[in-house]
């Protein structure tokens, strides 16, 4: 194998591969990036058997070939040689040699025969969407997914078609975040569960593209092609709960207030919250105030009073600090609305003026 390639393009590809390649106890070759030189391009491949990545880079190939090179070594080297436009790589007896105008390195290669094959890319179109919008939608909900592996369908982000829109939703069964976004689903598309640990990579992969992308799938995996690089992710074979049934139809009380006020108040309350992150809140419809109170036996107590617009019945409840601050990062408008349907029913947090994001959370029992 012997080829020359633009260093920046190559470095970008290796950086992508490096994030996916990693330690694998029983298959050490997975910490490598597979470099394939053929025709007029170099193909980089990496996988952790859950995600697969393939990046194509135009190159001047003098001799076709293949090599499995430790991704971390390659990445560090490329990061340390800023002043080079082109680099040349060639195979040399169980090693590869990379030369730039001023440097030369020699790295032992792994047996590329052990490197797994990437599953064939699915051809079935699931939906098409603007890449940046899809990335933003995933970002709006993925933090709400469960981090345990007890229920794989809850450690996933679920995407489904909803009339003319697409919806992505995640829950860990204590709270739930839903975001609707525009996109065009194919008729046969019913929904797909992307494992949480792959979502971050999918977001990174697509978020810088400004084009529309097509998400394809085949019942076992989804694949997305963006600007010459292709990522595939395993999908979860499971059923996402029909969560719409738990969203209360009517809310008896509502409070609207400035998002920043709430963020600041929560930040202060957090210092004095107890081991359960408990915050006691009082929504006063007569005074139009929201009071947050936290007590910690060691650090002390805190009371914050916020101004807001409280309609309906006044009420008091307890909630988990983290469960109320998390959704605020996904709300882009200045004002938020918090709505209550009564004791024992979930509360809803959403943005005022933007109906696309909904957050459902259960108040604390005690």
């Amino acid at each position, binding site marked *: 194998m012997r080829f020359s390639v633009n260093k920046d393009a190559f470095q970008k590809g290796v950086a992508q591969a490096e994030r996916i390649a990693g330690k*694998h106890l*029983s*298959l*050490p070759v997975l910490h490598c990036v597979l470099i394939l030189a053929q025709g007029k391009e170099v193909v980089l491949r990496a*996988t952790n*058997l*859950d995600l*697969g990545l393939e990046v194509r880079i135009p190159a001047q190939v003098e001799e076709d070939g293949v090599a499995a090179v430790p991704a971390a070594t390659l990445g560090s080297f490329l990061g340390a040689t800023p002043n080079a436009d082109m680099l040349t790589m060639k195979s040399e007896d169980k090693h590869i040699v990379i030369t730039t105008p001023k440097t030369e390195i020699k790295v032992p290669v792994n047996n590329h025969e*052990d490197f*797994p*094959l*990437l*599953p*064939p890319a699915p051809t079935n179109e699931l939906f098409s969407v603007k890449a940046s919008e899809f990335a933003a939608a995933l970002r709006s909900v993925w933090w709400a997914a469960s981090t345990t592996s*007890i229920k794989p*369908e809850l450690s996933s982000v679920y995407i*489904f078609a909803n009339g003319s829109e697409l919806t992505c939703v995640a*829950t860990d*069964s*204590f*709270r*739930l975040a839903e975001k609707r976004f525009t996109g065009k689903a194919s008729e046969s598309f*019913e*929904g797909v569960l992307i494992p949480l640990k792959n979502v971050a990579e999918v977001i990174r992969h697509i978020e810088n593209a400004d084009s529309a992308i097509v998400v394809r799938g085949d019942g*076992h*995996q989804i694949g997305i092609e963006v600007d010459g690089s292709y990522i595939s992710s*395993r999908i979860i*074979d499971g*059923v*996402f*709960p*029909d*969560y719409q*049934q*738990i969203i209360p139809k009517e809310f008896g009380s509502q409070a609207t207030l400035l998002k920043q006020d709430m963020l600041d108040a929560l930040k202060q309350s957090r210092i004095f919250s107890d081991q*359960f992150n408990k915050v006691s809140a009082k929504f006063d419809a007569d005074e139009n105030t929201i009071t947050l109170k936290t007590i910690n036996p060691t650090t002390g107590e805190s009371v914050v009073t916020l101004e807001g617009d409280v309609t309906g019945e006044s009420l008091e409840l*307890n*909630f*988990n600090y983290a*469960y109320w601050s998390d959704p605020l990062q996904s709300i882009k408008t200045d004002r938020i609305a918090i709505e209550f349907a009564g004791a*024992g029913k*979930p509360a809803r947090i959403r943005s005022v003026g933007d109906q696309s994001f909904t957050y*459902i*959370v*259960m*108040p*604390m*029992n005690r």
Partner: protein
Amino acid sequence: MTLPPPTDTKTLWKHVLSAVESSVSSASFRTWFKGTHIVRVEDGTVIVGVPNLFAKDWIHTKHHKTILKTLRELSDVVRSVEYTISTKAPEDTTMPTATLESSMASSMGGELPLRDLYINKSDNLNPRYTFSSFIVGTFNEIAHAAAQAIIERPGRRYNPFFIYGQTGNGKTHLIQAVGNEIKQKFPEKKVYYVTSERFSQDYINSIQTNSANAFKEKYRKYDVIIMDDVQFLSQTQKTQEELFHMFNDIYERNGQIIFSSDRHPNYIASIADRLKSRFNAGMTVDIQSPDPESRTAIVKAKAAESGVVLPDDVISFLSSALEGNIRELEGALNSILGQIQFKKRDLTLQEVKEIVKNNIKPKKMVAVKDIVKMVAGFYNLDEESIYKKSRKKEVVKPRQVIMYLLREDFALPYPTIGQKLGGRDHTTVIHSYEKVKEDLKTDHQLEQEITQLRGMV
């Protein structure tokens, strides 16, 4: 030395694995062959389950020859090998996770009630409802037998299948299990489960969004429609008309239609006659409350499901003490099982009695007002008219039925009944009671109505 041909797939696969293991590195073997198993053998084709797509491709390209060769050596019937992705090994046992989840729930705040909402989007069926968890007793054996006949030949035998009975006795479980079973047996048939409320809502939405045609097409593409709780079907003419047309369409195509309701179709006041006659055209069957033997079986099965063996005295106590419907029985049982898991030991009969105390319905304590409301609703009457002096025929009969029920089932004194029903004389009540009692001997319809009403109390 030649091995005797292995009899079961597990041993067969073990032999294959040992053959492969000798030819590859142990690292590679562990990565690719961990979790593989034979799913089934079909006409000489061995279907091998592998954990993921990567393994599927890898095994297929690198080890297919070895596997096929080994299998052929071991068994003459094997002609080919196929690979499928199957994460569930057959002997895979799932550990109960309830304790972990509930301990998490208490420390993190309330849990969203998502537990029972695992519903398959394309058919709305809850995969949890299967026949393997359905307990058959004298109270539901007819319904169960009819359901089995339907699964054999959907659309041909009892069509429509109308099942009615009190809430919590397993109607939804039965009809969903039929759906799940048909889906498995006839993968090409499109099954759809819908509650009547959802159906009405869907229809109204389609009108509002100007997509009535899409609505029609959606429902008419199904081969099996399961509609739950038809008594909630909205009274609007249009929705019922739509159901009527859908019914005719599916019926003509020999599609199976299944309904459930809390009462006999003839007594669903809000439904148009032409629908009632359609409902009655096939098989109408009721599920009653479980008898003590069935309750014992249910308690045993539910306990076994959670991996708990209850002592006999506890089981017999539970099945005699919890007389209500199955749902209540399950509720009480769940709190007992929860306690057992929490305390990590069996409970004594005394402790069980303590827990159950809260779950036993106080024997037949019902407010007169509720009875009036229910009976008035049953006869499609205004509640107020019962209390008034009106002697119109359509009011008098329900009023008499109320008096009869209050006396017969709740043993209220005659004067009290009279007083609570708009200050009537106790002799009026006695007369009404005697009249209904007498009529019951001859009037079959009245008898049915009373049975229905008793069920609803």
